[in-house]
Structures are given as C-alpha cells and as structure tokens.
C-alpha cells in the first residue's frame, strides 16, 4: 500500500529557510535530499494504486524522476508504452509532453484512440553527452484529472515499408 506521510514529513522539515535556499552545511543538505527521495517511493505506490482504481486497469506504473536530464528507461527502451498525464489544477491544461526515446518513428494515440501529431527531435550532442532523441506530443488534460496516451514505435521493417509506399513512382 502507498503512503504520503513520509513525503509530507519531509516537506514539513524542508520549510526551514536553509532547505528553501540551500544554505545549510553539506551533510544537512544531503540529508534534506535523502528525506525527499525517501518520501517519493511510498507516494509513487499511492499514485499507482489510485490510477489503477480510477482507470480500472492494473499496470506496473513507472515514474521517471530524471526527465529533466532526459533519462527515462521505459520510454527509451520500449517500443510500446502508455503515458498518463495527471493535472492537479482545477482547470483543463494543454501540456507538451517531452520524453527521451530511441531513434525511430512513433505513433501516438489520444485517450479516444485517435492518432495525434508528434515529433521526434534530435538533441544536439553539445547539449547532452550523446545524441539524444526526444518524442514530443501535445496532451490535453482535464481539470483535476488525467489522460492516457499510447505510444508505439514503428519497427524498422515497417518503417522501410512505409518509405516504399511514400517513395515517388517515377524516377526524378
């Protein structure tokens, strides 16, 4: 079962001005980070249970804590995965989802199983140690609700088949 108390505890401790502005001794700052990270785990279980209950679908959900540095094993290693976007605001929001992926073509479908536009963007090597590919697609999420999008990577032979189809018949 999940539990949000450890994270609440950590957030309460981190109201201290040293935590807000990072002006404590190194070992204290490290301990603040440790408390926060320890609070995440039980919360992720809580969110997974809530999503399973609300979507009537039990999945092995995973949370990518290092998205801001383009690390997310599930989206980088899988050819098919689901992305659930939760909106804590009391109004609908449009949000550009950005996920690190392996090179290739992707199909994204919205909660109504309709294909939506998506891009794969190459991140220049100067900005990140090795070439990175990021999948972008626009998500629309209801107030205090969530939307689930499905992502499928077009496998390479399909990709060639697709190319054949789109290649012009007459030689240029």
């Amino acid at each position, binding site marked *: 079962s999940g539990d949000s108390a450890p994270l609440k505890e950590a957030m309460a401790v981190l109201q201290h001005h040293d935590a807000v502005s990072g002006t404590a001794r*190194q070992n204290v700052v490290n301990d603040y980070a440790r408390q926060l990270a320890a609070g995440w785990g039980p919360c992720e279980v809580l969110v997974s249970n809530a999503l399973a209950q609300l979507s009537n679908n039990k999945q092995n*959900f995973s949370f990518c804590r290092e998205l801001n540095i383009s690390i997310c094993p599930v989206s980088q290693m899988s050819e098919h995965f689901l992305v659930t976007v939760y909106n*804590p605001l009391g109004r609908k929001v449009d949000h550009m989802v950005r996920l690190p992926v392996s090179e290739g073509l992707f199909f994204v479908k919205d909660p109504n199983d309709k294909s939506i536009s998506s891009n794969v963007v190459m991140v220049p090597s100067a900005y990140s140690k090795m070439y990175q590919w990021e999948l972008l697609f626009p998500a629309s999420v209801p107030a205090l609700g969530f939307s689930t999008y499905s992502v499928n990577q077009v496998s390479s032979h399909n990709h060639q088949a697709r190319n054949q189809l789109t290649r012009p018949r007459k030689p240029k």
Partner: protein
Amino acid sequence: SRVIVIENKYIRATFDSGTGLLMKIENMEQNLSLPVSQGFFWYNASAGDEESSQASGAYIFRPSVRKPMAVSHWAQINLVKTTLVQEVYQNFSAWCSQVIRLYEGQRHLELEWTVGPIPVKDDWGKEVISRFDTPMKTKGQFFTDSNGREILKRRDDYRPTWTLNQTEPVAGNYYPVNTRIYITDGHMQLTVLTDRSQGGSSLKDGSLELMVHRRLLVDDERGVMEPLLETNTGDKVRGRHLVLLSSVSDAAARHRLLAEQEVLAPQLVLALGGSSPYNSQ
C-alpha cells in the same frame, strides 16, 4: 542571413546569427516588439575587503565589484524546427548552456538553462546570473512576488519603511523571487517566471537579472562554518525561466495562470503496455 528566427502564431524570437544571442522578442497578437539581449554573467564573490571583512557565503551575497563578468559574449548554436516546437540550443561555455524553446500554441518562451560545475581554479568564488537587457524606461523600479501571491514594487536604493543608507549597491538591491519578477514601462511588461526561489533584481533601467547558481570558496562567518561549495551532483543545476512579453493590461492574467501551471505542473506516469482489469471489489 544575419538573424535566426523561431516563431509560432503568437510569439517570435530573433537571434543574432553572429553572436548566437537572443536580440528581440515580438508578441504578434498584441503587436508588441522589444529588443531583448539575454546572457549569463558572474559576480566575483567577495572574500572580505578593506571596507568590510564580510565575505559572500551561504547567507550573504556580496560581490567584490559591481560589474559582473560575461560567461561569454557569444554562443555556439544549434537550431531545431519541427511542427510542434522550434528551439535554439546555445552553448556559452563548457559549464553554461541553454535551450530557448517555443512550442506550438504557447504564448511564452521557455529558457532551459544548465549551469555547472562552476570553475574556481582561479580561486574566485562565482555567483552566476541570467540577465535580460532591454531599452525599456523603467524609472529604477521593478516588481517581485512574495511567496507567489502579493506582488511588491521595488525601487533602487530605497526601502518604504525606513531611510536606507545603501552600502551594498548590488546586493542591497537584490530581493527574493519565489515565482516571478517583472519590469514595465507602463505600456508593455517583460515578466520572467522561475521554477524555484532565486535572488533577483533590476540594477539599471530596462535590465532584469536572476541568480541561478553560486560556488563560493570561503565561509561567511554566519554559522554554517563551511563555504557554499557543492562537490557532488549538486554542482550542476538545470532549471527554466518562462518569459512573457505582453501589454500591461494583459500581463497579470497571463503570468498568474502560467505561474499556477508551473507550480502545479502536470505529472507523468508511464506504464509498459499490457494491463489486467482491476476493480476495488
């Protein structure tokens, strides 16, 4: 061409292709255009001087000179344009880079900066800022928020509740920024939203700066008993500034809604395909 442009139907950002730096922001919806030069600078942290032994440290910001040094006067850039996003990657130095993004349908520029590890081999502590310079006539005033709610007017070398004898021309004009800082000339407004608490100021007309990272070499004798000198993964920081150019009448609605969306941002949860039906019974 001399310039590089990224745009969507609302906003256009123009870059000088010679320096790779941002040089103008336009709000096409409201027909506003503002020359904006944005770059990274660093203050040389004081270790104490003849005026005062006070050093810059965890609790104290005290630059040794008023004028910060530029990290670089130019950036090596990469331009990426797709249907959903247009972005310029700027590489200022081995320890300072940024991506300026404009997503389809969005009315703000997203500046994702990555700073660190700040080099200190020259034995100088450094306090790094992102600074926006414009020709706006702001009469020595700027505005910062207080915990994301009340907006407070700030004035050069002035305190509303007592007669200030300004002894620190830079640090004495720095204020806490929890969610936003802005400057206005009464006609248009340049607002910068932050994704965390930072120090910020406007030290000359039309200018706006936010401190993004610090690396100091001496303690400030205020109780921590060690310099602010991260040696672990905390020595590199990545964050975002959201930049809005709008009319004064329209600005509050824009930055208040955007700040809410920044603080209560959508959360992503992934799952591999294949699930089993589940109900509480």
